[in-house]
């Protein structure tokens, strides 16, 4: 088991294609590096996120998050509010089954925030690193 100093957590980032996804592209344009083991999955709106996606991601990864548009700035009016609710729901479920709640998070950013994207991902990565490997991973 890769623990301690060598532990490199794996993170699944769900990104709204109107903000987080574009911010990732902006980060790429600026060549801002962020950890390798981060997988991006594009969604049409952060409101498309589902507890199921989070749980499935946590079967494989150590942490997962959703990148939503800034508050009150959702193109579809309520997508980011709903995404925040989904995150709360997932946190409850994680708590019940004995996994750290902090493995799931929601962050708000705009399309032109490449720096913020790299920062958010790096901070989340560091936090998950402190938490250690996810005990709920399904290893076949």
């Amino acid at each position, binding site marked *: 088991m*890769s623990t301690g100093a060598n532990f490199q957590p794996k993170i699944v980032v769900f990104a709204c294609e109107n903000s987080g996804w574009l911010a990732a592209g902006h980060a*790429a344009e600026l060549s801002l590096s962020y950890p390798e083991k981060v997988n991006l999955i594009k969604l049409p*709106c952060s*409101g498309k996120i589902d507890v199921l*996606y989070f749980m499935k991601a946590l079967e494989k990864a150590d942490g997962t998050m959703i990148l939503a548009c800034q508050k009150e700035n959702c193109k579809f009016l309520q997508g980011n509010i*709903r995404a925040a609710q989904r995150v709360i729901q997932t946190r409850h479920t994680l708590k019940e089954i004995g996994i750290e709640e902090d493995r799931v998070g929601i962050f708000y950013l705009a399309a032109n925030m490449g720096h913020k994207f790299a920062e958010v991902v790096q901070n989340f990565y560091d936090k998950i690193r402190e938490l250690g490997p996810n005990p709920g991973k399904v290893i076949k």
Partner: protein
Amino acid sequence: MDDNIRVGVFFCGCGGSITGKVDYEPIIAEIKKLPQVEYVRDSQNLCAHLERELIIKEIGQNRLNRMVIVGCGGSPEEGIFKDALTKAGLNSHLLSMVNLLDECCAVRKKTSLSSAKALEMIRMGVARAANLEEVSFGEIPVNRTILVIGSGLAGMETALATAARGFKVILVEKEDKLGGRLARINSIIGTDRKPVELLDEKVQAVTSNPAIVIMTGTKLVDINGDVNGGIGNFTAWLAKDGTETPVAVGAVVIATGVQTIFCPVKYGLGIADNIIGQMKLERLLADGKRFTRKRISMVIGKGTEAFNLPFVLAIKNALLLRRKFDAAVNVFYTNIKVGGDNWEKIYTEARDSGANFFKFDDSIEITANNGEITVSYDDPFLRGKIPGYYKITSDYIILPEELVPAEGTKELAKILRLEPGPTSFFSIDNAHILPHMTSRDGIYLVGSCQSPGFVNEIETAARAVADEIACQLNADRVSVELTQPYVDAAKCVVCLTCYRCCPHGAITIEHGEQFNNLYQSAAQMNPLACRRCGICAAECPGKAIQLPDYTDNQILARLEAMEVQP
């Protein structure tokens, strides 16, 4: 076709940007081992013109039915490959793009890890490709009749503009005659035309236009809870003299406008002849009342700052009173907002003409005594330099009125399933999209119903809305790609969750034999009104709703294809 998935994986070097960081050879060897992958090829640059022809040929030769592009994830490039798929006789949605350039190459140095990451990403892309679904086009019959609510200048302009684009128009007015508030105004900023002349001209044009049906004394009413249907197929119930009739319309334009409430108590004053509201002043000026060499005070402030209208009205009339009647005009303000077409110029002209502008903070005291008004205020600029309150006496005082949405706006918003904004006017859709659109496609706003506006802006707004309607309802049958979420009726229990959470009112509950569930009904998304956010798909407790290109299967397959590290 689904039982025989043949995926073609095309690697793009992106002119060396990707191949400089990731070696394709070992990855290609790995990808070829995947069961569904039939064909793999790498190229220097897949965007090149001849490449597209080659891809089309390869799809035919290898009987591929899914395509994975490994390279970038940009939308212009996506268009190129969708085009290639269509030309090869496949559905353009059978495409999965792996964004290696942005997510892997541009952000990190070449290491063994980046190769491993690239391989994982491509595996995820292939897993998604295997779950892709075709999306077809549909033709939707639409009604090319437009319902315009309110017959003020905004309503009449919109009726004329839409009628000029070949639509039939029903113009509904709850009062007995057309015109709204236009006749109460004295002058229009930016033009010398008299509002009364303009009104006569528009009423004449509207009444003589055969495409416009005018219904006065008529209101939109609540029959089945709200306006049924979506863009192209609304059913609105109109009530006149107690009888209700349904009309089928394609789009609804709200032009209900604003109303003013005069409330001098807010300033510590009562009702008197020399205490005048701004709109009342317009009315008096239009009626020909003279203010020759009178002393006039105007106050703007105390909660009127939400809108531009009071500022511009005050400046416009200050200038007019100075020029026409040589009156002594003193304007007391907390803030002057002149961000608009030519307003700064009017403001400068008003100052140049000799109107005095005094700033006050909060402390202003207005007293009326025997027909004389005394305004005493504390000047923040002179505070501490010259002691004391300043007092100015005048013959008249002009106060701004409260601006509130026209009567019945709240009920109308409920009928049309719209959320009123923070100032209780109709709220426009957010700034990403057109400013005259609401959160529901097919319902548009013109004029002061969204926030108190100006006569000279209305014509532009009316044309913008007419153009938007002409774009959306361009023929009797509109062709649209059916990328809206679809519902598995067997799983739908008609719980109305999606109906309630749809931010665009695009969901209706349909009934019929074709829905094979207990209730013989299911939620259906209107492809014209839906904006493909997927909120309904995420909210559906029964997982009955799937959004094409983002189905649960596709996303879960991608997650499933990820490697687990112990």
